């Protein structure tokens, strides 16, 4: 027989193992591949050190410059808001901290539930705003691919199901929690193969750019 509890245990057990294995294998494969591809050796004499420039760029490209802000304030503000909200919920919600402790063997202090709840609500609103913006902005709409919508949908579902589960708005609760875990697992599975990989590659890429420019002695 199969009911909500069996579903929850399936998402917490076998499916979680599979999802995390695909995630870990996929991500490591991509990262190792990226690192091993390397670059053609540069025989030119470096004009400056790579590291300081690389690290500086990691920072400067994270904070939007005034020009970008003026051109696309919505992207900057809403983008920041939902990324921060998402990370707050992901990394500092008590059950998530316990999950991290269980999987990694170490964790960090959590934030009180009301704080996380607030961050989640904001994230949901911001995510809806990004979709509306994407659909109404002619340029954005034109350059959006199926993958963009897929990634949006998966991220949104993860946050939405988490919010519904926390507030126990779906009965029975094991079904609500199972749905949330299932969505998170779908996210884990598609992560290495979509633009979601940027979670791990953005900072590498920013460092890489900065380092390359730094070596040439140009500002980035």
């Amino acid at each position, binding site marked *: 027989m199969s009911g909500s509890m069996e579903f929850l245990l399936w998402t917490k057990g076998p499916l979680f193992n599979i999802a995390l294995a695909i995630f870990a294998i996929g991500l490591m494969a991509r990262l190792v591949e990226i690192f091993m591809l390397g670059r053609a050796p540069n025989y030119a004499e470096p004009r400056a050190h790579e590291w300081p420039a690389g690290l500086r760029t990691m920072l400067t490209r994270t904070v939007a410059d005034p020009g970008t802000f003026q051109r696309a304030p919505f992207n900057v503000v809403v983008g920041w808001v939902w990324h921060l909200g998402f990370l707050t919920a992901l990394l500092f919600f008590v059950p998530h901290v316990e999950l991290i402790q269980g999987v990694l063997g170490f964790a960090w202090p959590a934030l009180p*539930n*009301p704080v996380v*709840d607030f961050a989640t609500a904001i994230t949901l609103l911001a995510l809806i705003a990004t979709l509306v913006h994407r659909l109404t902005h002619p340029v954005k709409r034109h350059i959006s691919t199926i993958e963009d919508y897929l990634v949006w949908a998966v991220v949104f579902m993860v946050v939405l199901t988490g919010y519904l589960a926390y*507030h126990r708005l779906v009965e029975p609760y094991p079904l609500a929690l199972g749905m949330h875990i299932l969505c998170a697992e779908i996210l884990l599975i598609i992560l290495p193969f979509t633009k979601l990989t940027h979670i791990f590659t953005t900072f590498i890429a920013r460092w890489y750019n900065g380092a390359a420019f730094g070596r040439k002695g140009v500002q980035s």
Partner: protein
Amino acid sequence: MSVFDPARAHPAPGATCARSAREHGHALPILHEIRHALERLLASGEETRIDLQSMPFGPGDLERLTAVLGQGEVQARVEALGPTLIQETAIPGVWLVDYRSLEDQRLSYQIEIATLPEILRPRPEDLAESLAALDARLSESGLDAAAPNASPSSS
């Protein structure tokens, strides 16, 4: 979401300082419920019963509730299928009814908001038989033989 526990701001007068630190906040909603029930009783005579055993009380919540309600003048005991203890609270019309088993274990603990708790009133069927019961006792006692004008038993 998590509302600031309002009961914490107004500790029950009966709660001692040592216990009031562990307020679980479940007495207050019941007190509000009693308030609404009293309003209904005053307005339309409608009675209300609240089963205290179905409440998610934490340790001390029940004591805090009964401490706020206080003690009134009436105490009564009904012997039927084990004892039932009735206590009037300091609020007229609010009664604590403690149903106990033959072994004196609590079966149910209820608050009744009524002029008189149901179990104290004679059952209508019993009331209908009351004249007959009196007459029977009277004739048993033999006192009526001396009084020729004794009223006939009503049926």
